[in-house]
Structures are given as C-alpha cells and as structure tokens.
C-alpha cells in the first residue's frame, strides 16, 4: 500500500500523544508475556528434571531390546552379544553434542530371600562404573556404599526392602529367578549398600548386582537391554530416527522413554494441559484489557478519525491507522515482555523457584520424586511460541477497534460537539 509509511507515522504520533495509555496497554501485554515466558521456563525446567529423574531410574531416554522383551520381560527374549555390540555401535554414531551414555543391563524379576522372609524383587545386573553416571543411585546411599568394579557377589538394595527383609550392610541374602536355561537358580549375595531414592516403588523392589554376577547366575551372555542416557530429552526423537535402521538390521528394536515410561509421559502431558489452560485464561484477560484500551482510545478520537476520512483516507485506511497502533503496541510489548521475562528469570530465579514451603515432602509424580526447587530452563522454541501467542492475541484484540474505526460515519464524527 502506497500510504502505509504515512499511516504508520500517524499511528506512531497517536501512540506518543497518549503515552500513558499506550504504556499501560503495552505493559498489560508485556507483563502477560513475561509471566508466560517465566511459567514456561519453570515448567520446561521442571519437566526436564522429571524426565531426567525418570529415565535415570528407568530405561534411559532410548532403549534397545530384543523384539518381544518389553511385553514378556523374559530372558528368552534377550539380546545376543552381537546384538548388544550392534546397538552400542549404532548409539556411538548418534549425532548428539555430548556422547550418549549406554548402559548394558541384564534384568529379571525374582525373589529376594533372607532369614526374615522372601519378597519379590526386580534385579538388574549393571556395570558399576557406568551406573554411577547413569542412575546415580550411588548418590542415594544411606548405609554402606554403591557397587564398585571388582565386586562379584554383592548387591545394592532399597531401604524399604532391606527393612522388610531385616537386612543391613554386610548381611547375606539369596536372589532366586528363572535362568536362561529355564531352571530356577539361586544366587547368594552380600549386601554392600542400602539406598533411599524417595520413590517407594523402587525402594521396595529394585536391587542392583554386578553385571558379571547376573550373567553367570542367569546363564546369559548378551543382555536384556541397552539403556541409553542422552544429553537432553529433546534428542530422543532424532536419536531414535538415527538408530532405527541400524537396530532393525541387527534384529533389535529401539524405543524412546515415552514408551518405556508411559506413566511419566502421561503425567507430563497432564501438567502441560494444566499449563495451557492457565495460559489461555491469562491471555484471555490480557486480550480483553488490550481490546478495551484500544477501543476506548477509538471512541475518544472519533472526531479525529472522522476528520481523516474527510481529508481523503478511505474507511479501510482509517481502520488501518488504528490497527497499526495495535501492531506497534504488540511489537513493543513483545520485546519488553521477553526482556522482562528473561530478566526476572535470570535475576531472581537463576537458582530455582523453591516451592517446598507449599508442599509436603517426597511427592512422587509420574513415577519420579518431585523436586520442589524448580530450575527454569530457556527453551528457545517455547519462548518463540510465547511471543507468537502474544502477537496473535495483540493483533486479534486490535481487529475490532480497527473495524469500528473503519466504519465510523465521517459526517457524524466531525460534527460540532
């Protein structure tokens, strides 16, 4: 449009004349956007924490299994040594900024027995050195120590299980499970350490034993899974895509954490839904505030807008002046809102938002322990989404006042008061 620069110039003049009103309108939008960015960064940080905790204690961001294993959890559906090697080779090729951390595991369900009784247990044979970087269960030790290289007939178990079996560090217990041969095999182990993860279900059942011990006890050469920890959950889908073909050639399947930890995935989706509902309510309020401010300014300037028509602007162009005012306010608010949101986040909440005062201790959410200190994380994609949402809201809110301005009757509006 030929006259767009003139209309923009006029819109700028109009905004600058009503500086206080313009600033208040822009502030409503900017604060809304800042709140949105802040809540998104907090939510993103919390979600990544939950995913991290969940995949570390579970099967990693991605998991290689023999087909059928996830349903049967049977040693009959284990991976051969060659399949384990192929999986490790595939993951080594994945293009992540930091190298992925694979953990070869032999897992089985069985019984843990002591002189006090026998309880069901989920027993995983792990490489101790790898596992200290993976599950970090070694950091949850309450008695004794975690497994070390060179350990053979040792076990590391949860506090709840230890209490129920009357075990302490140094105690002996027998692990019993069905071996690869199909026979029920027992293995005597000594408790080397006891942990408390905060997740009741784990503390009651999960036992770590050295990988070599599990293999020899169960008669397994390969593994039941290669669990892989990635630098960030956002790499899950790209890594799955990159490794799928190689996994297929090796006769194994590779899946992401949403499939191996469906409860966690559902919990995150539920939380996301709640966040969106909050954002929609917040922005509905902001949109009404903007619409109100711009519409009132149109009503106050009826005569000026009618005069523009008399001077040669069409109704559409007159409406466009008002709409450009809305665009300028929205753009200014966008920059101010992003700056405000990031400044608030960095200056006040760099070390996290601590809501422990409002919550009871040890809340489990989706199978992981909820950390009441939420560290914000800037996801560029979500910041851009928030800005776009602000633009959509701002530009939509300006439509009605602009339409109203375009339809003003010039003969009526330029009348003497």
């Amino acid at each position, binding site marked *: 449009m030929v*006259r767009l620069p003139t209309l923009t110039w006029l819109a700028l*003049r109009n905004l600058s004349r009503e500086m206080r009103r313009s600033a208040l309108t822009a502030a409503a939008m900017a604060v809304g956007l800042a709140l949105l960015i802040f809540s998104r960064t907090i939510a993103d940080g919390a979600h990544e924490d939950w995913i991290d905790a969940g995949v570390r204690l579970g099967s990693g961001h991605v998991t290689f299994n023999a087909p059928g294993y996830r349903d049967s959890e049977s040693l009959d559906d284990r991976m051969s040594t060659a399949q384990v090697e192929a999986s490790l080779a595939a993951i080594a090729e994945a293009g992540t900024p930091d190298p992925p951390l694979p953990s070869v595991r032999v897992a089985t369900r069985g019984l843990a027995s002591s002189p006090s009784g026998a309880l069901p247990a989920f027993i995983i044979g792990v490489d101790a050195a790898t596992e200290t970087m993976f599950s970090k269960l070694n950091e949850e030790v309450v008695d004794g120590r975690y497994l070390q290289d060179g350990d053979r007939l040792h076990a590391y178990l949860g506090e709840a299980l230890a209490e129920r079996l009357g075990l302490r560090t140094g105690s002996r217990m027998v692990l019993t499970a069905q071996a690869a041969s199909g026979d029920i095999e027992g293995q005597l182990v000594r408790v080397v350490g006891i942990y408390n993860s905060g997740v009741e279900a784990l503390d009651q059942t999960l036992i770590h034993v050295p990988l070599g011990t599990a293999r020899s006890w169960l008669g397994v050469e390969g593994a039941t899974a290669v669990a892989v920890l990635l630098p960030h959950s956002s790499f899950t889908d790209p890594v799955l895509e990159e490794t799928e073909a190689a996994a297929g050639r090796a006769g194994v399947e590779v899946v992401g954490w949403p499939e191996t930890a469906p409860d966690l995935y559902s919990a995150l989706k539920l939380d996301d839904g709640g966040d969106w509902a909050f954002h929609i309510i917040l922005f509905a309020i902001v949109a009404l505030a903007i619409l109100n401010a711009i519409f009132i300014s149109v009503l106050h300037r009826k005569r000026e807008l009618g005069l523009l028509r*008399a001077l040669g602007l069409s109704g*559409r162009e007159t409406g466009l002046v008002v709409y450009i005012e809305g665009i300028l306010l929205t753009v200014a608010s966008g920059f101010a809102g992003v700056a405000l949101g990031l400044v608030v986040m960095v200056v006040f909440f760099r070390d996290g938002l601590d809501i422990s005062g409002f919550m009871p201790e040890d809340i489990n959410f989706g199978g992981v322990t909820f950390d009441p200190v939420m560290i914000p994380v800037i996801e560029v994609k979500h910041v851009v989404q928030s800005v776009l949402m602000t633009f959509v809201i701002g530009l939509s809110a300006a439509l009605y006042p602009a339409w109203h301005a375009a339809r003003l009757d010039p*003969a009526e509006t*330029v009348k*003497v008061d």
Partner: protein
Amino acid sequence: MRDNATAGNGTNEVGHPAVHTEGLWKIYPQEPSPVEAVRGVDLEVAAGEFVAMAGPSGSGKTTVLNLLGGLTRPSRGKVWIAGREISDLPDRELAKVRLSRIGFVFQSYNLLPVLTAAENAEFTMLLQGVPARERRERVRRLFAEVGLEGLEDRMPPKLSGGQQQRVAVARAVLANPTLVLADEPTANLDSSTAEALLDVMEKLNREKGTTFVFSTHDPRVMERAGRLIRLVDGLVEE
C-alpha cells in the same frame, strides 16, 4: 456583495461546474418518523465562485455540504464534482475524490492534535504524495500570506481559535482542490478574527481561483459572498 470570481483553477475539469446536484434528498431514518433533512436540492456552483449558503438552524446547510463533500450519501438524487458523479462511488473512490478535489473547513477547526501547525497544513499533500520539499515550500509561502509565519511548529492547543482556523483553511487549499467546503467557518471567531479569515479566503479565491461554498449564519460572510443561496426546511429558496 462582490462579483463572482470566475478564474479557472488550472485543472482539466474546465468546462464543468465545480458542483452540480440534481434532486438531492437526504432522509434520516428515525423513530417515530424519518427526518427529511434535504428535500430535492438542485444546485450549480461554477468554478471559482465564492458562494454562501444561509438558513436557520436545521435548514439542512451542513447536510448539503456533507453531501457535496461525499461525507454522506444522498438518499436520492445525484452530485457531480467537477463533472464527476460521486453519489454512488465506492468508499475508496470517494476518498480519492475528497483527497484530490475537495478541501474541508469545519466550524470547530478540526486539526489533528498530534501534528504541528505545519504538519496539519501539509497533511493532505502528504497523502497526495507531494514531495517533502515542495510541501514545506508551499506551507511556508501560504503561512506567510495568511499571517501564520513563525507558528509552523506549534501544536494546535497552543494556537488561538483564529490561528487554528487559518491552519485549517491552509490545509484545505494547499492541496489545490477544485472545491473548498466550509461549514460555519467564522462561527467560533470574534469579529476581527472572522474578518481576517474572510480576507484570507477571499484572497485565495481571487488569486488561486479556488471555489468556496460556505454554510453560514454570519452576515459578514453573506455580505462578502459572490452568491447567496438560502435554504429553508431542506429546500433552496431563491
């Protein structure tokens, strides 16, 4: 009354009257009965005329001016401006006609409060795409002629009523319109300011050949008009 000015304005509509109307009606739909503000006005104003439209309040003067300026559409009848029929033009075309052919002066000045005096005066030229240097030069010369020199950067509230109305007249004539429609231009001015404003408009009419049509109650304006049209109850009374 002085003689009608007959100078052409240099545009290509020579040969057509500045204004021509046939059977012009404006009816406002109102309860309990519609209001017939203008009832079959036939009018012709030649290029370069200095015409006053007089009549009591409610006689339809402002409505006729709005119809001539394309600010409102006739219920019946037709309006030609410099030979172009404007009654049925779409909004965009009508806006172009107002921009290129018509200047308005309102009783209450109606300057844009966000612009300086000079910016107000050159606003129509800006919309017409007149280059900045030429705009500034035209404003400088006309401001000197109408006694606004030195007030270019003043905002409207810092100008007196007479000064604001002179800026409005400058804005109306600077874009070289075929026709200037002035609705009670002296109504809010004291007598000496009104006389000075009439001097300005008369001079512009005489020297530039701009056609002026006023609505007025003011005997001074009627006295200076080249022709007086009387409106009563929405009808022209010869």
